[in-house]
């Protein structure tokens, strides 16, 4: 078990290194003039020159990459002497437009993104898995057809479209919800909930649809297993039989997928956050694209990549908890 963990961590470190290298190459090597991109829209030749020196863009590639990589672990400074800009570890870049380390900008926005992601995840897991199980158990029924048709729609409809329709119906036409304005939970829990409700629904819709289809397929498979017949022969109540013997084994692959999907959302639900004006990581990246603030775009991309890789390790390490056959030392 220890050597398995060590091997997984070592290979994950390799993947993380590749992610950092790839991001660096895209933004610093493949970009015609990184200093110009970093400088942004309102820029003077002197400023470009200043940024170029501070970033050390005249240095060889390996020196530049080493400075960037070591900045993540021990911090770095841009420029030298009294005018040097210090970026403490872990340094994921510095925005010359906002004059802030990129990581600070991201962590400022992370609570909103986490709120959106966690709320949506709870919603899509409950709705998706429940709909999938009922569809599998009643395969071929009107419920199955209806929910699978709806799921297809959920996957097919672009979520900005669903977001706009939902806003128009709930806020403008039916006036069920007030115009969503984000307030801190501690200030007014009801308003807080109302502001996040639509983003949760919109984001959850697509995932719920995918999870429903996946759960349905997996449960249909486990329902035909011999051990389900055994459970029935034991006289188990149907509900217990479905949850323990058909659903439980069907959920292992769903859990793996969930780890990835959730990690990917930590890079921000760009469209959902933008449509609902939520200041999360996705909105940060969207705005950075608008103002061409390269270090921010790069930082978000890098951290999103790291989140997915890390979640991948977590999923791998908890897999033996999900499937007893994967446990070492039980053979």
């Amino acid at each position, binding site marked *: 078990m220890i050597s398995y963990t060590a091997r997984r961590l070592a290979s994950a470190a390799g993947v993380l290194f590749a992610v950092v290298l790839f991001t660096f190459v895209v933004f610093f090597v493949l970009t015609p003039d990184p200093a110009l991109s970093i400088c942004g829209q309102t820029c003077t030749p002197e400023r470009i020159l200043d940024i170029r020196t501070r970033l050390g863009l005249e240095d060889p590639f390996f020196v530049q990459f080493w400075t960037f990589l070591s900045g993540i672990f021990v911090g770095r400074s841009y420029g030298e002497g009294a005018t040097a800009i210090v970026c403490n570890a872990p340094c994921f870049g510095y925005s010359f437009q906002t004059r802030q380390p990129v990581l600070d900008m991201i962590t400022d926005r992370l609570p909103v993104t986490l709120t959106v992601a966690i709320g949506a995840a709870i919603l899509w897991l409950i709705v998706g898995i429940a709909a999938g199980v009922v569809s599998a158990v009643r395969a071929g029924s009107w419920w199955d057809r209806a929910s699978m048709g709806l799921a297809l729609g959920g996957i097919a409809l672009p979520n900005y479209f669903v977001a706009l329709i939902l806003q128009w119906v709930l806020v403008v036409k039916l006036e069920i919800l007030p115009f969503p304005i984000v307030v801190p939970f501690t200030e007014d829990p009801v308003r807080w909930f109302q502001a996040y409700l639509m983003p949760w629904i919109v984001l959850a819709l697509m995932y719920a649809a995918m999870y429903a289809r996946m759960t349905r397929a997996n449960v249909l498979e486990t329902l035909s297993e011999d051990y389900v017949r055994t459970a029935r022969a034991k006289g*188990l109540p149907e509900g217990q039989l479905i949850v323990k013997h058909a659903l439980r084994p069907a959920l292992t692959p769903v859990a793996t997928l969930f780890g990835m999907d959730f990690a990917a959302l930590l890079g921000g639900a760009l469209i959902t956050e933008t449509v609902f004006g939520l200041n999360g990581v996705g909105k940060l990246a969207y705005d950075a694209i608008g103002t061409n603030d390269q270090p921010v775009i790069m930082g978000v991309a890098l951290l999103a990549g790291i989140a997915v890789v890390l979640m991948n390790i977590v999923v791998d390490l908890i897999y033996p908890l999900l499937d007893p056959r994967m446990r070492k030392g039980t053979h």
Partner: protein
Amino acid sequence: MSTVTHTDGEELLRVEGLTVAFGDDPGIEVVKDLSFSIKAGRTLGVVGESGSGKSMSSLAVMGLLPPEARASGSIRFDNEELIGRSNRSLRPLRGERMAMVFQDPLSSLNPYYTVGAQIVEAYRAHRRSRPADARRVAIEAMERVSIRDAGRRFDHYPHQFSGGMRQRIMIAMALVCEPDLIIADEPTTALDVTVQAEILELLRGLQRDTGIGMLFITHDLAVVSEVAHDVLVMRGGREVESGAAERIFSEPADPYTRRLLDATPRIDDVQEVAS
């Protein structure tokens, strides 16, 4: 096992004119007009080649036919008609009054739960009991089927057992509620010959101790001669012939039975060649 609810010779199961069909009426009949009965303390061996309808007949008794199959005729268990009863109303019988042991013990046990948990589940499906009591009952059941160190093995998963041990677990699970009838569908087919002999001996011993009635399904006449008091030979969903085991083996009436018997290698044949 502590209680014997039936005295030897008392009729447990009577099947009359059982027909199992798939598809639209009349559909494909996989079992046609089959009749047999099983008494307490006795074993009926149902023999036939694959596709002869023997497994479908046993699933019909348990009410476990696939949803697209239809059963007609009469299946009376303890004088209660089972045909036409809903899945829900059959549930209290399954595991409690009649239990089943399947062919492949690996795929028949859920890999996600310990064997102990699966035996406990079978027990608590019918008896209210505290977890600690259920655990004790399950360990006793495992000991009854000669699983050594049952207290420790309770917490092991199916993949940690050998094929023969898994089948012992299946038998322990089937017997945990002390049913009156056990249906064993090819219980030794997936096992080595030596393990086969152990499992057959185990089933015989359990029957001797409890007076349980047994429906034993197999394609193997040698196995049937080991366990069955009565034999029913099937082919193409129909009965070919039936009767007391000694009679079938010594003077088979039907040419098909005779051919089956001739096709079975026997220990005496080997001895004749050797001598």
